[in-house]
């Protein structure tokens, strides 16, 4: 009898804890240990922040270059273009994050409809 059969309805929850939760949470807990005693203005934290910001920009770039699911239905230039439009709206409309995201979304939706309508 396999573990999956023995646990029945509890199997997905065990997978969630062991495969999903623990490998994910370990970094947050490790950060608690490593950051103890660090001052918010310390030099090492300045470097850590640079690493985090670079990582995040890299995550965004990867999402735009190789998107999963439905976003792949929008052409690459449409994805990058709507990001540029969102950023332009952010600056044009008094640095409003809300305006930037909403207008960028509107641009993407427009490109999406256009791409869909243009498809045979």
């Amino acid at each position: 009898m396999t573990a999956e059969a023995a646990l029945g309805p509890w199997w997905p929850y065990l997978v969630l804890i062991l495969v999903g939760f623990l490998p994910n949470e370990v970094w947050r807990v490790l950060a608690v240990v490593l950051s103890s005693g660090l001052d918010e203005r310390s030099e090492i934290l300045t470097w850590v922040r640079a690493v985090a910001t670079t990582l995040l920009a890299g995550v965004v770039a990867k999402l735009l270059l190789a998107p999963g699911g439905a976003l792949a239905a929008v052409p690459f230039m449409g994805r990058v273009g709507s990001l540029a439009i969102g950023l332009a709206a952010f600056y044009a409309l008094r640095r409003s994050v809300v305006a930037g995201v909403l207008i960028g979304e509107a641009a993407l939706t427009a490109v999406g409809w256009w791409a869909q309508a243009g498809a045979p």
Partner: protein
Amino acid sequence: MTSRSDIFVFWRGVRDALAFPAWIVGFSLFGVGSLARDAGLPAGAAVLSTCLMWAAPAQVILFGGLLSGAALPALAVAIGVSSLRFLPMTMSILPLVRRPGQRWPVQVVVAHFVAVTAWVEGMRRLPNLPVEERLPFFLGFASACMGVSATLTLAGYQLVRVLPVVLAAGMLMLTPLFFTVALVASARARQDWAAIGVGFALAPVATAVVGRDFDLLVLGLVGGTAAYVAGRGRRRI
């Protein structure tokens, strides 16, 4: 979290999250709920994954992997690598919300709430708050984000397949769009701009050189150090 003013600030955090950011992360997790259903998981596991993992990309790896029948140990490693970003993020936010004499269980709770939305918004808003207000504000903000996201994960689970492709694409675009605008909005020093530029420009290079699994790790360390040096050069002169 005892005094009256702490509770007041907590609710201000809730309100600020519900004003916009909570919906961004919430709708990103809508798609995760749909994916969990496709993978054959019960609704409870889908919602619990949002509360426990609190990391949309890792949840996508988990459910996508289960769907394709990937080996569980391989999935665990892939999730661990993809969530490495939480280490520098959590390390940079904890000292902002730390109060004198704060015990470690409180810090573990704070750390659990760290995800990209709470991080970018926290780095933007927390430095402007008085030190004593930062912890209750962050907890209110992040728990509102998580509450909305758990609800929308369930909605995504139930409403799978009724969403037009264009709207689904829009939901998937929320994450890169919001991250970028929020990163630009919170950039102050030369180092921040260097990090954003390096991250964008070198991501494809890192993927080509190191492959898809460890590219972000290398990009973060090499690119982040380069951005740090660029910022430091300016600070010293």
